[in-house]
């Protein structure tokens, strides 16, 4: 499955990057293709292109704040989870997607 995700936490210090790493690792283990944009204190990194979003079958928002540039995802299936969930039980998110 082709998946794109955005992670963002209020302080932008650590959880943004930890959640991104967690999602990437598990997606790869499950054989999905994933690209994760991080919106932390280092600015927007690994920015999702229009093409990335168009090709994705699902978008994961693992965020505790508003996503920057949310309008880019209009018309795409989005599931939103808290960062806590992405850090503690990322497997659960993918189980939800596959159902």
């Amino acid at each position, binding site marked *: 499955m082709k998946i794109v995700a955005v992670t963002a936490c*209020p*302080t*932008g*210090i*650590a*959880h943004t*990057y*930890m959640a991104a*790493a967690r999602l*990437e690792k598990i997606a790869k283990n499950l054989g999905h293709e994933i690209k994760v944009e991080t919106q*932390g*204190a*280092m*600015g927007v*990194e*690994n920015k999702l292109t229009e*093409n990335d979003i168009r090709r994705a079958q699902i978008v994961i928002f693992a965020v*505790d704040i508003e996503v920057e540039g949310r309008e880019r995802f209009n018309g795409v299936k989005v599931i939103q989870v808290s960062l*806590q969930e992405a*850090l*503690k039980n990322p497997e659960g998110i993918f189980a939800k997607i596959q159902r």
Partner: protein
Amino acid sequence: MKAANASTRALLVSPNRIIIRELENFLHNTRVRHVHFGDGSTAPPALAYVTNFARLSVTLSGCHTMEIASGGGAKIIKPIRGHAVFVPDHAWNKPDWSGPVEVLTFLFGAKQIGVSLVRHQGGTQLPSSALKASVHGGYDVPTHSILAALMVLAADHSKGPLVRLLTESLLHACLRLLKSPQKRWPRKAIRTYESICLYVQENFHSPITRESVADHFGLAPNHVSRLFRKEGLMRFNDYLNLVRINRAKFMLQNYSVTLKEIASDCCYNDAAYFCRAFKKICNVTPTEYRAQCATAVQPRTSPANIWQRRRTAVP
């Protein structure tokens, strides 16, 4: 203007300028008196902050209570104004955000530096405000060198004035970077080239080739070659080999696994070919390299080593 509250003002002034002002004000009025090092010598608790880049927190007001690992045990520290906390890459800290605090955190990424100014009332999950600024294409030589020196001292648990003076210097170096005019967003070719490099670094253990990478990015294989020729320092295949051999060096230095296992971890099917490729890049065989590492006195995975390795892996 007087009636405007902090959040309205934040909308009028860019986060960058507010962060610069706070940092200038801090450096003008305060000396760094103490630096805590979180060394990651115990396993991180749930939801602790662990990142693959180093971080430096400076308390501006209040008390930034947190848990860190130090010398093999976890402990609670209560940094106040004048105290800093340095957390090397892969080490951890866990702030509890229980009391009011204002804290500036610097994130030292591979290519950029991020700064986050968090104001927290305490007792709630969410901060009352968080401003972020970043310096793209971040490092100049002074910043990089001061940070590298601080990494070495952190690994050695060094005491004495050097640590706090270097921390102060690092803050001054960051202030200088924040105040220097931001570089233009890099050209598209450079961005594509950098994304490919990152992709290679993340996928070197899979059987990737110039063709599969080109396909992943929707480019023609020849275009990938052209990007490496024009923007990079070496050809695509040489870069892929370099990334794999760097990984092999890390494994040889830190783990006592067989050459065959290392070769296959780095996606070389043939151990003899792996040895030839290793020798071509390092001028010594893998076995000789491992022997050299064993004689040099080095901690098993010192943060300073991790730092150097990462810097060299990025072109």
